[in-house]
């Protein structure tokens, strides 16, 4: 797969069409692609992985049940996610001057729920190193992707990231997980 030229994982190549279930290998390849796009700061291509009604959620509490009853480190609907990504491209985003560099390890990929043929809930673990200015930060946690296939391409219907230290005092978070 050439991720440079085609930032997508083809569900069809793995024999996945509408109504067919994603297998764990396809899901893993997709998560690795997503991590790579984020590490390479290709945020527009990252945004393109989400469905038009997608949500992106980083809770502020362990096991947080609801994004409306409790604050979240990030809780974006599609409209806000687009704005977030557009801001990341701004030459006047001072909190990214200089830019962060990141390195992500994504692993322990399992399919949690594919009873509903339209979407597949995928769980994975990540470790993320972020370096900016003089400091290196380490994040880790669990991601839940609800994946779907649109026009033969795997897409994110929703993404939840549970940071191990989500309720810790934290310096600002600008680069998405």
């Amino acid at each position: 797969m050439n991720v440079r030229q085609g930032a997508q994982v083809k569900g069809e190549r793995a024999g996945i069409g509408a109504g067919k279930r994603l297998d764990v290998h396809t899901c893993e390849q997709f998560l690795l692609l997503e991590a790579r796009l984020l590490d390479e700061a290709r945020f527009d291509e990252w945004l393109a992985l989400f469905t038009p009604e997608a949500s992106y959620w980083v809770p502020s509490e362990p096991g947080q049940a609801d994004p409306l009853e409790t604050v979240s480190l990030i809780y974006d609907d599609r409209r806000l996610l687009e704005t977030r990504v557009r801001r990341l491209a701004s030459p006047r985003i001072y909190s990214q001057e200089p830019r962060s560099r990141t390195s992500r390890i994504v692993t322990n990929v399992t399919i949690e729920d594919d009873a509903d043929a339209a979407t597949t809930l995928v769980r994975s673990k990540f470790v993320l190193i972020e370096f900016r200015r003089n400091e290196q930060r380490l994040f880790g946690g669990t991601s839940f992707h609800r994946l779907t296939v649109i026009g033969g391409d795997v897409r994110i219907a929703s993404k939840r990231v549970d940071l191990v230290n989500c309720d810790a005092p934290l310096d600002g978070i600008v680069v998405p997980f």
Partner: protein
Amino acid sequence: MDPPMREELVEDVTSLVKPAAVHRSLYDDPAIFELELERIFGRAWIYVGHESQVREPGDYFCTQVGRKPIVVVRGPDKELHVLHNQCAHRGAMVVALDKGRTDEFQCCYHGWTYHLDGRLKAVPLQHGYPADFNPKSRSMAMLAVPRVSSYRGFIFVNQSDNGPSLEDWLGYMATSLDDMVDRAPDGELEIAGGVFRHTYNGNWKLYLENLCDAAHPWFTHRSSIDAAQQQKDDVYTDGAGEIAIRQMRQNGAPYSFWESQVGIWTYPNGHSYLGDYHDDKKLVAALNDPAFRDYVDALEKKKGKDEAKRILEVRRWNSNVYPNLSFMSQFQQLRVIHPLAVDRTLVCTYNFRLRGAPEQMFHNTIRFANIVNGTGSLVLTDDLEIYNRIGLGISSEGAEWLQIGRGYQSDEPDEHGGRRGKNSTSEVYIRNMFDAWVGYIGGAGTKTKQAQLESVSA
């Protein structure tokens, strides 16, 4: 620092604050930071929490005053107690959880237990101690902070025995706390929705100095302003994006708006508030938002039409109660500033539910919090960068004096005993905080000067 040096520093303090400039050492000198903890956080009323966090006897939560860990607890008699979180035996921190309910506190080291008012309750192996060992003595306890007072549910403590009452100290700024509470149809607030805790590498004073700064959004927040202004409206939103994007767009109002349409008011003891730079139409789509209409109905039903109108016409953005509290009534937000080191600060932000309001109002509060106070906010992260850069910039030892003179020549008296900026971008609220700073650090203390110095060197 030895006592003579400290005396010299205090004597010298007025020379570090001029009417329209402050010396950069106020932001990076560890000795001055220690003085601030002792004399500002030791003498001013410090906000510690809200009564809804300790509704029932035995309810407690932990926080800090300055750097000191404390416990706020509701006693069996419903009275509030604020205790140093330290065992009288070997000094261990007694209460380790952020919050909970208990009928006593017990130290995990040797099992000394304490009543909820801090008095020692039981000491295991109580034999063989010296004859004057007295577990009932007031000094052998989880010591209580000298003064605790609450105003309409907001709990403050004062580490000094003397000085003005909380109400006298708040003065006209109490009307901002009134505004917070009055907006609840049932007349009561409840802390809810979790907490953000964000940190930065900069001095604690920078936070309040930014919150009423009407001149910075247009510049500092340019990236989120541009991104929001270019955002298409016909994209899917569940409501989270709606409120956030309105907020970011309004930050991009032109200088002419910021200068003339907002308003900045200051009051004694360093307090201030910025006028509202949104109106309900711009931010919550009030007139078109069914939840807001239901809310107004609920408010009118409980308070009457005239009182509801009066309440909703109070238009304040951030209200700052110096030195550690800032809150915003329109979206029920509250921030508490904790100085950790001269160049390290923690800010905790909370949300309130308006008792008697439709639940959607609280959901809007949460959505607003995420974008304005959130650790991953598109707005706040650029403010944090500014605080970090001030820390870095000052370390360059360039210009010795930092300028706080914007609007200096046009400030005017306010009818309630304060000063207001004729121009809304006036830095009058920073000058006002430094007036209070000089008062706390330099004098107007509660002990004689000699006694203070002795207590410092002890």
